[in-house]
């Protein structure tokens, strides 16, 4: 049973506040991802958990056990490094056995556990190979086997896929996720790739400049971004600024870009300013004479540019006051719209999210 509790943890490097008063509760068996742009402090936080970076203040616990005061080699975490950190002077088997030897496991047991760990990552026949004879993806698997074989309380991964090519990344992330679920181990995963984070996490913490912006499931973070920063960081979005006009049934009517939008009711009084996010893929083109589903909002925009990407067509359009509106159409059976054409678009008001101003 290893839940990880991070309580008010901070760390500054000179004038840079790398991690600023972060508190997190990571549940037992959870796949938890730290996500954020470069330099936001993800690695620093992960290294604090592993014991490679001192805390200025705060406490970290595994279950009820306080671990931030323990030496790094006593914490029983399994870390997978970005550059793999496979010992070049040891072969694959000895790399995997390294942590077991340190734990003085009986020799016979070591051989057995190494074999089953390598089997787990599909490298059964590679025990006698040398690291320089392996490909990047294989090295990554060795690193994972080496971290898992010691049966760590928590698995820590710092951008483990960033050195692999695009296709392998997708493959490996699936494997990592599957492995984590079958072992039921708590995993903390660092990445700056939002797609990767969405694909494999139970929950995600989005970080910015050493602080937490939002913690939640991939769904809620994507659809209900808590701040404009998160809304933008989680993928292309239309972040529109406008003014609340009033209520209309269950909806709020907002004017932005000289257009009236309907959104789900929020606690903002008429007359006040509002920022809301409308994902490009939430917009649908209405054919001539086609009626929108009941209760949906309808707007018009003029196409400025259209990009055909195969599965997707990306359109940049203008609202009447020239505010830009991005639209993503999933292979609809219409022709790619031409520049200058006016489109009728509809959207489900529930797809509009109102991040808090920060």
């Amino acid at each position, binding site marked *: 049973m290893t839940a990880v509790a991070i309580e008010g943890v901070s760390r500054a490097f000179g004038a840079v506040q790398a991690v600023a008063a972060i508190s997190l509760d990571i549940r037992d068996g959870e796949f938890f991802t730290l996500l954020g742009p470069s330099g936001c402090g993800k690695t620093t936080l992960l290294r604090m958990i592993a014991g490679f970076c*001192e805390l200025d203040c705060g406490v970290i616990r595994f279950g009820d056990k306080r671990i931030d005061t323990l030496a790094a080699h006593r914490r029983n975490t399994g870390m997978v490094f970005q550059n793999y950190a496979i*010992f070049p002077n040891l072969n694959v088997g000895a790399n995997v056995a390294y942590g077991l030897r340190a734990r003085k496991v009986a020799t016979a047991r070591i051989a057995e556990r190494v074999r089953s760990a390598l089997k787990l990552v599909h490298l059964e026949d590679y025990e006698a190979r040398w690291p320089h004879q392996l490909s990047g993806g294989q090295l990554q698997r060795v690193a994972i086997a080496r971290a898992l074989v010691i049966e760590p309380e928590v698995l820590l991964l710092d951008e483990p896929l960033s050195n692999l090519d695009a296709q392998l990344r997708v493959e490996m992330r699936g494997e990592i996720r599957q492995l984590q679920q079958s072992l039921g181990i708590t995993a903390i995963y660092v990445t700056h790739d939002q797609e990767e984070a969405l694909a494999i996490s139970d929950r995600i913490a989005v970080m910015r400049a050493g602080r937490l912006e939002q913690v939640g499931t991939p769904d809620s973070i994507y659809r209900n971004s808590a701040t404009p920063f998160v809304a933008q960081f989680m993928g292309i979005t239309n972040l529109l600024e406008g003014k609340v006009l009033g209520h209309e049934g269950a909806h709020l009517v907002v004017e932005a870009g000289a257009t009236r939008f309907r959104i789900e009711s929020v606690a903002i009084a008429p007359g006040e300013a509002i920022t809301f996010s409308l994902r490009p893929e939430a917009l649908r083109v209405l054919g001539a004479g086609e009626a929108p589903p009941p209760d949906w909002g309808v707007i018009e925009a003029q196409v400025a540019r259209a990009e055909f990407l195969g599965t997707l067509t990306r359109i940049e359009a203008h609202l009447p006051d020239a505010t830009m509106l991005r639209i993503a159409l999933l292979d609809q059976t219409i022709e790619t719209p031409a520049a200058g054409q006016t489109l009728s678009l509809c959207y489900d008001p529930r797809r509009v999210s109102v991040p808090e101003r920060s």
Partner: protein
Amino acid sequence: MKFGAGAGFRITVTVFGLLFLGLFFLYPVLRVFSASFLDSSGAQLTLHNYAKVLSSAFYLDSMVNSLWIGVLATVATTLVAAPMAFALARLPLAGKTALMALSILPLVLPSFVGAYALLLLFGRAGIVTSGLHALGIPFGSIYGTPGIVLVYVLTLYPFVLLPALAGFKAVDVSVEEASQNLGASRWRSLRTVTVPIVMPAILSGALLVFIDTLENFGVPFVLAEDMPILAVEAYKLFVGETDTNPGSAGVLGVLLVASTAAVVMIQRRYLGRRRFATGARRSPPLIPLSRGFRALATAYCWTLVLASLVPFFAVIVISFLEFRGPVLHWHVSLDNYVELFERSLRPLQNTLFLSTLAALGAALLGVPIGYVVTRARTRITALLDIVATMPFAVAGTVLGIGMIITFNSGWLVLTGGWFILVLAYVVRKVPFSVRTSSAILHQIDPSLEEASINLGVSPAMTFLRLTVPLMLGGIVGGMVLTWVSAASELSSTVLLYSGQWQTLTVVMFQALESTGAGLAAATASLLIFFTVVPIALIYRLLRRYEMSLL
């Protein structure tokens, strides 16, 4: 105060390193300083020693001579070596691999033996001199400044050559191309872009040359004759034929240390403001040359390399010739060696024994220090770094004097055995050991160590089980080089040896004052043998580390 990961190991190494160097390096050197401020009874503070030395034309001359020879030798060495570095890096030369291999030898061959070889060949009773005289050709003197500077240039040029070569190879060729693209000729690009980029590397090599010339004891001792030189006069004052004079010797020691320290500081300030590494992925391409220029460049490099090795070669040849007294007979014989070994095998055994212990000691002390100052950057490890680099700027003569003053009496008596010699060697070689291990560590990714600690191995055990094996090639290479340079150490050895603890260098030193030329040649050959063979054995290792161990 909070301590981070691996604090126990780091603190142990730091504390032990500071204690060791404090006791066996800083304290003795401090005692030299304080001796220079004490009167002859050793109880009263006085500036009398300084007044006496600084008012003496002789000792002022020694200062001026040392600095002047240092400047001349440094300038000459740089002017000779920098073009060779460029040629090796950028020009098509014949026999480049052999050139590179041979050009590191002077660095490990004892300069003192080189000076001695010159004396055997061109000295007043030298073989070449006598031959020329017999033919009626007059021959000038190699004693004094010209001879000393010549020996320095021929033995120290690799100090400039190696960093400059690395520098020229690291220049990103695209900056030269950019310069030519902007309209500069090839020559102009070289002058305005390439050379300035490499300048810091050249200057850091020049600094090593200057410091070496200032503290060198053997070369001036052999070749200076009546010309006073700081390191030699400090020794003479301290050993004192009539009476010993630690106070005045201390003053000369202080002057010596102050000069080297000043140079190091000036160079640090200059280089601190300049960092031009361009980080080329591949070496720049060779510049095509016409046959004539190619032959010229090849001849230049080979002349320099051969000139630096010929004296050593000559000594070996001479050692197999027969001497009757000082007179050479052109018969091949082993008499010199027979005489050497009949007298005693002790000097050879001593040299092997002492250098081996010194190499082990310097590695045991220097490698952990190098590790700590590279991997854990704190204020206290920065201090350790400075203290462990300082012996480099302190002449062996000064350290030797300090050790005698300190450990001759009092609560810790060490003089009069092998231990103090080993201590002196370890202290003198520690900067080298620290620097090489730090250079090797820069090639080892720190995340390997973190992975090991993360898997449950303590930092100290990680160092022993993972880092040391990974560094092993470099550590062994560094130990061989320490071994070699300890075997040819002279300046502190002549002060600290006693009774039966003569080394090969001491035998040569004494042979200089008597007339045993044949014996000295045989001793020198032994020393050369014990230098060249180990270096040849680890040459591949040196290439792997791109000579950064030197």
